[in-house]
């Protein structure tokens, strides 16, 4: 076996190892250390942090919220993103290019800026929309958005929508237009064509998009941090809190590693299921 390919990829592998693998390994090790408010981090090998993260109801609530939010975000992006991609696909140029830019444009803007935009629109009494609705007499008290789970779900769904649209759009590109015509010729109405012909064919695309969105939503930091504030924590902001406020690095490490492991299992498992289900059909 020639060693040239391996030697050529060595620089990149080394970079990857040093910047990603080693710190990850160190974090895993860190999660097994002991910590005390006065003694600091003690480099031993104990299971204290893991026991706490896996059994304490507080942490279970945090992870439950994280995955609950991720699930709602995924469903929302699927429900809105798939039709968006379909309409985009049916557009003629130049509109198609323009709207592609409109839909993907947010990716060019920092997620912090986007989330702050939501805060400006909906935030408390001074939020634009709340102000408008109150002054028109449509609502008596401002709609709760900031520091609520609903607000987090909405903002995250908006932030992650482009990923779903892209995944579905890619799947739509592979469809043969003649297949839809064939269904029409056989007597199918437009809605039936969508439901029985188009949707089943793009389903693998939607599911791929869903896996991506779920992983990104569960590990999201900026948006939950801004919308959720100090009280409403998810896994990522919790780990952040432990590291920077409580200074209990080993516990923070345990939270981070648990999130990573859970997401790896979910993503690989879901991908495997999707591939197996559609292998016969799409190859």
């Amino acid at each position, binding site marked *: 076996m020639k060693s040239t390919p391996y030697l050529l990829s060595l620089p990149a592998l080394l970079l990857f190892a040093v910047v990603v693998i080693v710190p990850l390994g160190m974090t895993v090790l860190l999660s097994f250390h002991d910590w005390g408010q006065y003694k600091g981090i003690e480099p031993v090998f104990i299971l204290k942090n893991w026991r706490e993260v896996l059994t304490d109801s507080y942490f279970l609530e945090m992870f439950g919220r994280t995955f609950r939010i991720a699930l709602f975000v995924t469903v929302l992006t699927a429900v809105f993103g798939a039709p968006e991609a379909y309409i985009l696909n049916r557009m003629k140029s130049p509109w198609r290019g323009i709207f592609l830019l409109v839909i993907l444009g947010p990716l060019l803007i920092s997620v912090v800026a986007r989330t702050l935009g939501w805060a400006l629109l909906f935030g408390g009494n001074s939020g634009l929309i709340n102000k408008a609705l109150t002054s028109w007499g449509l609502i008596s008290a401002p709609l709760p958005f900031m520091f609520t789970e609903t607000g987090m779900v909405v903002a995250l769904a908006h932030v992650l929508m482009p990923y779903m649209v892209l995944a579905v759009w890619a799947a739509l590109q592979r469809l043969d237009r003649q297949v839809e015509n064939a269904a029409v010729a056989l*007597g199918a109405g437009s809605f039936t064509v969508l439901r029985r012909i188009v949707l089943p064919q793009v389903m693998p695309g939607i599911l791929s998009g869903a896996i991506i969105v779920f992983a990104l939503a569960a590990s999201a930091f900026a948006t939950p941090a801004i919308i959720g504030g100090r009280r409403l924590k998810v896994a990522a902001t919790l780990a952040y809190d432990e590291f920077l406020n409580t200074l209990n690095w080993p516990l923070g490490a345990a939270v981070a590693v648990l999130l990573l492991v859970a997401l790896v299992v979910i993503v690989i498992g879901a991908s495997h299921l999707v591939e197996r289900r559609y292998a016969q*059909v799409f190859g």
Partner: protein
Amino acid sequence: MAFLDLEALTKTFGTHAAVDGLSLTVEKGEFVSLLGPSGCGKTTTLQMIAGFVEPTSGAIRLEGRDLLTVKPAKRGLGIVFQSYALFPHMTVAENVAFGLEMQGVAAVDRVKRVGETLELVGLAAFTGRFPRQLSGGQQQRVALARALVIRPQILLLDEPFSNLDAKLRGEMQIELRQIQRTVGTTTILVTHDQAEAMALSDRIVVMNQGRAEQIGPPHEAYERPATAFVASFLGKANLLDGAIVRPEKISFASVGLAGKVRTRIFQGNHWLYQVETPDGLVTVIRQNTGEAMPGEGDAVHLAWAPI
């Protein structure tokens, strides 16, 4: 009253007329081919009959009623697309049953009719397969079954054999003809292959630049071409003494048009010659009888019966 009546059908895209005043009547149970080179308007004509393209002017009547006011979904026509357009996420049985489902046929009857039609195209054992798992020829048969099972008034085929290899194409052509004769469905086939059109059709419509240059039975269009285009498109043609002479009608004789053999090609059951003469390059076809034939570079005399 004709079964299908196309009256002065025209379709213009901007200034370009893809179909220019095409008129055609098709009898019930007839097999008609729209034959011509790319861009002659044959596929556009088929799409207008199917309802996917709206004519600029002209009329289409099926059994007397105006078809142009009927939506494509309600026309009840069976279409086989060039790419077969099978539903990739459905099995063979589900693909074929789809049209019946849309018609509201009960499940029990659906299974029976799907079974019968798959039997007709020779795919009874493939009900559970997905299109991906089938060969080109098998996919084409599924497409045909899907179009036939709904008992359409007209079967439309858009260059259905162009993706198959030569041998399979020949076999499928014969099968299609047999199936059409068994079921008796009025059929319109679009093709650029003149041999295919001649083999399958009751009548051929030779199209060029949106117009029909000749409409007639294959034998008649071949022996008595109406225009030079038809003569050269259907088989090979030589222009000799101001008349069109087919290559197989020319023989090598002791007296006649003098010439020299430029090329000789062996085609199994016949020989193909290109002979240089004062009247130009003449194509000659002689059946392979096992006798010795002139070779390349030989001096020959060409003779043919006067038209």
